[in-house]
Every structure is written in structure tokens, then in C-alpha cells.
């Protein structure tokens, strides 16, 4: 469970116009694809960072499994991993193997344990034959896989994806969603996806909708569909659902 209770957050110098997250409360559970939506400057990325413990909240509490992620991350614990938009800017190692090892070294694991996890994870993501490969030689899709693998190898209970599909071509997007489906429905991994693409929205099973720092909507996919135009206008409403509604209106 990820629980936000009355969470407020603002960046250092708060002015009248600057962004702030306003007393946001929600909880997310494993077992379904959790999606966070919202336009630019809505606060969705801030929420993702608070979940991983990259920043402390100004008021309220964030808990992942009942623990404070900020505190955990500071003391080299690890609750939720995050994968950012641009694979290029988050690969640290010069080779696949080194990048997989980077997080494990931070966790202070023994060599034997690291070796075991790296081999296993690489095989799972189809990177087994590329362990010694310099990162510069990988394709875009492979780089993204490596980013996911490098977080997964740390065995987080939750993984947060910040705009994961915006850098991918449509073919790679399909592969990406296969992996997510596998994670959520077969591996007991908590998944949160932050994205504003309409086609991603159509895949979420539970939705949090943000607009200028406030939580505008939370609920299931079905509830979101029913939420009405004043909610929908803030987001990229998928054509797929519009079409469904047209068909439904005809039958009514």
C-alpha cells in the first residue's frame, strides 16, 4: 500500500503563483495498474517523487508499507523504485552489467548476492547475452529495458514509471505494456504509471487525476468514465472511451 495522508509539498521558495501540492490524500494498492494523470505542472511528477522518497513532504505523511520512503532512502533502504522518462539520463554504468550492479552496490550487498541477482534479472529481461556490452551500443528499446531491469534487480515492492512511453515508438510501447501487465498480474509488484498520453490512460485500472496541485479525481477506470465532462476536460480522454460512449448512447 502507498498512502498519502493530507500531503502538502512546495519547492523551496513558495510564492503566490509557484506550484504547490495541496493536502492530497489517497491510497494505492498492489494488484492493478495504478495511473497518475494530469497536464504539465499538475503535480503528477511531484507525487511520483514523493512516493520514492526523493524529497520530504512539508506537511502530512507519505507511507509505503507503513514506512516513510524519504527516511528509508536516506538510510539506504529501498521501498519504491522510480524509472524516469529518458533512459539516456539514468544509466550510470558503462556496460549493462555495471549498470545493473550500481544499485546493488549502493544497497551494500555481497558479491555473491549481486552476481546471482544480476544473472537472474538480465535473463528475465532478455539482456543475458548483453551483460558485457557497452551501453552506447544498445538500441533505444534495450536502453529502456536496462533502466527497468536496473531498478527491478534491487527488488523493490513498488515501481513508479514517470512518463515511460513518451520516448518509445509505438511498437516498443506495446512491448512495454506487456512487461507492465506481467509485473502487475503475475509478479505481485506494485506499479504506478505517470503519463498523460490518452492511449496509456485507457490501460489504467485505477486512476488519480491531478490538476494544478490538487487531486481532482480518484477512482477506478469505470468511475473515471462516469465522472462527467467537468472532470474529463482536464485530461486527455481516450478516443477508445469516446467511441464506447457513442455506441452506448445509441443503444440507450
Amino acid at each position, binding site marked *: 500500500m502507498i498512502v498519502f495522508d493530507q500531503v502538502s509539498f512546495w519547492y523551496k521558495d513558495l510564492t503566490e503563483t509557484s506550484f504547490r501540492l495541496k493536502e492530497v490524500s489517497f491510497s494505492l494498492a498492489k494488484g492493478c495498474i495504478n495511473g497518475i494523470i494530469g497536464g504539465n505542472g499538475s503535480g503528477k511528477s511531484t507525487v511520483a*517523487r514523493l512516493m*520514492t522518497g*526523493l524529497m520530504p513532504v512539508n506537511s502530512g505523511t507519505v507511507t509505503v508499507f507503513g514506512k516513510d520512503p524519504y527516511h528509508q*532512502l*536516506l538510510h*539506504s533502504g*529501498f521501498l519504491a*523504485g*522510480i524509472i*524516469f522518462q*529518458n533512459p*539516456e*539520463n*539514468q*544509466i*550510470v*554504468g*558503462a*556496460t549493462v*552489467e*555495471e549498470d545493473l*550492479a*550500481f*544499485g*546493488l*552496490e*549502493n*544497497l*551494500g*550487498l*555481497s*558479491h555473491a548476492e*549481486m*552476481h546471482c541477482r*544480476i544473472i537472474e534479472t538480465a535473463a528475465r529481461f532478455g539482456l543475458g547475452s548483453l551483460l*558485457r556490452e*557497452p*551501453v*552506447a551500443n544498445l538500441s533505444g528499446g534495450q536502453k529502456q529495458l536496462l533502466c527497468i531491469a*536496473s*531498478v527491478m534487480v*534491487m527488488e523493490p515492492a513498488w515501481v513508479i514509471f514517470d512518463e515511460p512511453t513518451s520516448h518509445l515508438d509505438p511498437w516498443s510501447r506495446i512491448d512495454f505494456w506487456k512487461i507492465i501487465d506481467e509485473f502487475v498480474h503475475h509478479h505481485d509488484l506494485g506499479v504506478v504509471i505517470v503519463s498523460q498520453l490518452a492511449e496509456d490512460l485507457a490501460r489504467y485500472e485505477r486512476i488519480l487525476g491531478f490538476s494544478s496541485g490538487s487531486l481532482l479525481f480518484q477512482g477506478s477506470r469505470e468511475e473515471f468514465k462516469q465522472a462527467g465532462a467537468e472532470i474529463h476536460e482536464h485530461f486527455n480522454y481516450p478516443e477508445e472511451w469516446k467511441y464506447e460512449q457513442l455506441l452506448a448512447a445509441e443503444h440507450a
Partner: protein
Amino acid sequence: MQISYKPGNGLLYSLNPMIKGAIAFSAIVFFSLNTLGLVAMTAITAVMLLVSRLSGVELGDIFMSVRRILLLLAIVGLIQGFGAEGFSLVDACAAMIRILGVFLVAGVYVTVSSQSELTFFWEACFRPLGLIGFPAREFALVMVIAVRFFPVILGEIDRIRMAQVARGAKLDGGGLLASAAALMPLMIPTLTQAIIRAGELAIAMEARGYRVSAQRTRYQRFRFGIVDLFAILIPVMLLAYLLRPFFYTAG
């Protein structure tokens, strides 16, 4: 063809990175001081190439790269060849083999050493400085990241250049000051992007549990094998040979 690490399993590959580095550096010093004369140096070069070949190093790529320094070789040969008694082919060749030797050693070293091995060697060299508070491991990590981002940033500069030239930027202005000003449309965006990248990377590293002060374990392990025990003799012998004048004076 560029010289870069090509994975392999031969003898040279299997050496401990410390030994590899020590051999490479002592050999480079040895070649550049060359005191043995043309015949001996040619023989040593040949032996070195033979060992590399037997270790599975693709010498072709390295030889191809020699073409790039041909001009340098020719010039050095000419300058060194002309002595008091007119042109001496032996002197010219001796001078050339010095440079060629340094180049080949460096080429083979880079080909058989992965990035992590190079880093390990650097880190080990800087480790003594750790006693006075120098962060050797962090420094090594910075080097890895720099090497990793080098091609990325080059690609970016290329794209920015294309776009700014299309807008009308003239990136090759006249004098030094003028050209510095003309480079602004290229420099500022490149720098801005590099800073953004650095920021994103820092956050991503933090999110994966990296703390500068924290104790980290190490995945890469490099063992000393029997071969290393013998190989260590090479740099020891080379250094002993090079330092021999000091022993004489001391004795």
C-alpha cells in the same frame, strides 16, 4: 575504425587490471625513452604484437588507425634522421619505432581493457591520495559517467549545430573573439542541456540509493592469477632497466 574495447578471453584479457595498467604504462615509458637501438626495439615490438595476436586481439583495427599518425611518423623520422653526418635511415627508423611502439601499446591496452578495468586501475592509482581525503572511488565514478555521456553529448551538439545553422548561425566566425561569440548559439544550449542531464542523472542515482558518503560494496572483482604473478615481472624488469642509471650512481 576506432580503437575501443573488444571483449575477448585471451591471455592479455585475463590479466589483472592492475598488472595490465602497470605493463602498459611501463612499456609506454620504455618505448618513449628507447635506448636499446633499432633492432632490439623492432624485435620487442614484434614480440608484443605476436603476444597480442595470440591473445585474440584484432590487430587489423589498430593497424588501420596507424594510418592516422603516418604524417606524424614521417615528420618525426625526417627531423630525427638528419643529424651531423647527413640523413641516417637507422636514426629515422629508430625515432619512428619509438612513436609507433607507444601507439601500439596504447592501442592494445585499450582493446583488451573494459571500461570497468580502466576505472579500477585509475581508482587504484588514486587510492593513496585517499589518505589525505581524496575521494578516489567517487572520482572513478565521475570518470565512468564522463566516458558514458561523451557520445551522448556529442550527438546532442551535432543536432543543436544543425538546427542553429539552419536558423542562420555562423559557427565559424573570424578571429578568436569573434569565433567565441559566434559559438554562443552552440555553447549555451549544449551547456544548458548538459546541466539538465546532470540533474536528472543525479536524481536517478539518488533514487537507486546512491549516497556520496555511504559505504558501498563492489561488484567488479579482479583476482590475481598465476599468470599475473609472472606478468608482474615485465613491468618490474622494464622499470629496473629504466632506473638502472640511478642504481649505478648509488652503487
